[in-house]
């Protein structure tokens, strides 16, 4: 096994990540504005931006889902219990004792087990909750004439707001974890350049050097 700098975040993936970051930040800001937590922009502007940004994010997601399915990258998110406990233990105890992070990035496993599980939960629970409730909210005009629509809307809003809080909590932890291990900058860099240190098997190394010379340094 050799440690090499390998292209693990393709151009689309990086674009996806950063534009998603910008869009979600905008959604949180405008969303909490609509919710009444701040009045930095008017309600009208907040709603207009929130809706427009949400539509842009939906579009991005359609592309991202397509990309994950066609490139096979979705496999990175398949949950595994292997090593999960060790990673959790590391963040809970080992990190304070100066232990090394137990996980090594593999070519087909760029997330550690805890990370993969978190992202999977994000993609399967939190994001669907916010999307389903958000789209229902956006399309209220289509179902506002059914009985009890207003009560239903307040439940939709409840789910939407709860999901927003959870997303914000995720972001707080997500950003914090960048400060563990490498420096913050070192963590962010792969998401900019696409290259990160990955343990390669001789076969992977040989394959990349021969067939994808631009993806390995």
């Amino acid at each position, binding site marked *: 096994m050799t440690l090499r700098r390998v292209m693990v975040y393709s151009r689309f993936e990086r674009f996806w990540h950063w534009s998603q970051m910008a869009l979600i930040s905008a959604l949180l800001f405008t969303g909490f504005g609509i919710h009444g937590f701040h009045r930095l922009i008017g*309600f009208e502007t907040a709603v207009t931006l929130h809706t427009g940004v949400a539509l842009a994010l939906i579009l991005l997601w359609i592309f991202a889902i397509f990309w994950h399915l066609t490139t096979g990258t979705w496999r990175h998110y398949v949950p595994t219990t292997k090593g999960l406990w060790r990673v959790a233990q590391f963040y809970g105890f080992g990190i304070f004792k100066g232990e090394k992070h137990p996980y090594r990035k593999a070519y087909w496993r760029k997330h550690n087990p805890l990370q993969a599980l978190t992202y999977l939960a994000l993609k399967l629970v939190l994001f669907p909750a916010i999307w389903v409730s958000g789209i229902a909210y956006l399309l209220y005009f289509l179902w506002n004439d059914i009985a009890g629509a207003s009560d239903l809307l307040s439940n939709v809003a409840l789910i939407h707001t709860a999901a927003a809080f959870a997303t914000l909590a995720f972001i707080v932890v997500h950003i914090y974890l960048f400060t563990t291990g490498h420096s913050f900058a070192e963590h962010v860099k792969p998401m900019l350049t696409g290259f990160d240190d990955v343990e390669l098997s001789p076969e992977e190394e040989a394959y990349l050097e021969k067939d994808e010379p631009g993806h390995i340094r």
Partner: protein
Amino acid sequence: MSRLPFALIVGLALTNSLFGGDAAKSSSAGGAIPPADFEFHPPYEPVLIPPDTPKERSGKEPGATTDHAKLEELQRDFQSGSEVTKACLSCHTEAGKQFMKSVHWTWEYKNPATGQVLGKKNLINTFCTNARGNEGACAQCHAGYGWVDDSFDFTDETKIDCLVCHDNTGLYYRTPQSEGHAACAIMFENAPPLDWKRMAQRVGMPQRRNCGQCHFYGGGDDGAKHGDLDSSLFHPGRALDVHMDEKGLNFSCTACHVTKQHIWAGSRYNVVAKDVEGTGKPGLRRDVATCESCHGGAPHPNLSIRGLKLNDHVDRVACQTCHIPELARGGVATMTNWNWRTAGKLKDGFGYFEHDYTQGNGEHRKTYKSIKGNFTWAENIQPHYDWFDGQMLYKTIDTKLDPSQQPIAVNAYQGSPDDPRSRIWPFKRMHTVQPYDRVNNTLVYMYLWGDDEGAYWGGYDFAKSVEVGMKKYNKPYSGELDFIETYSYWPTTHMVAPSEDAVGCDECHSRDGRLEGLDGVYLPGRDSNRWLDRIGLLAVCGAFFGVLGHGLIRKSLGKGGKHA
């Protein structure tokens, strides 16, 4: 034409100048000379409209094919309004029959939903309280000649007053139909003769002046009742009313209140609170005065997120709610409170006025009149908002009231968030303290206008006035008079502001906004689940302080937890 030197006046419903100083002497003051501070301030002043004045825009192009000045039938010196009417009807053969079905003539409306017989002929209101029994004064605004009591012949089409609606000279005016108490004689002094021929020869589609001379003075004074109808609409600017804007669209009332055979669209007894039909095909809709009948059901441009979102509101929010930001915006105040309890105070045996309110256009408004009590005036007021399905529910003279429920809504609106036909509407709300029978728990008819001492306006005796008022119509009266607090509500629909002045989203979508307290709808920005907000903030803060603690422990131990 200069201001008429007589109290024309009374104004349409007996308003301003009625009884001033000596003129209001409670005993017998006929012919008394008004004191120096007597105000001649006709609420509606006949002013010649120059013949070359452009006509207001109405539903159809005015008078294009007939010049009434050339008609043979009109080349006479008419001696009365009825003679003019006969001449009108000799050509407009069906007009009389049509008009006699209109509420402008019948003053009666049978509510198909409740079966109640309403209309000015029967109703109790919260202003001068009742036209019934006071027709001599109130019928100043009845489109007929000579209704002074129940003997008026509602089948005589020669009694129709065509000119009040169709005179285009601006010179026509009406006075009370009977003389009332001797103290009121001053109101008829120096009244200029009406030039019937001149007016008959210059008739046309009703202009705002025609409708406004009555409708702008409802409740007994300029702007008193509605708050969205007052004399500022004779010559409105764009900011006041984007449709009636004199230099712009210059709509007449009938541009929206379309007619079919002298029946007007836009009933206030049974409002179309939600029009889902929209514009209809060209020329088809002559039955509604709704915004939607011109602007359609999706009035905002659908090409932007903003427009789409605004159109989403149409099903639950009336156009008026956002597009009429405030009432009484034209410099003329509207009455918000009337206290009858204080009426009847005299100075040396004379009725008097106080005027402690100066309105936007500089005019002083009376805040006390001996004949009516105390008033409160207000301008630029935010409407009262609530769910409304178009149905007004009236308390009539026969309704038993529950005095523990004061203020009692004399004309309550009906509506509910659960009813798809209801929308959020703006209302002007009026608060009144008015007489009632405290034993029978009913409202009462007051006898206000008459030539005897029983008439309150001149006699100043509530007990006598109510006794006569009730007896006239065989209504039970215990003789125990007291005062009761009431509300009345007037759905607001005029004084539509230009779009840039519409109510902003924040004004409702916020805490303590315009719709604070309006139940039955989830309003983003106003409503939230307190517990969810607490738990959510706790979770976010928990995450923040959790990682902060985690980081601090790492730092204090001096171990970074290297990855590789």
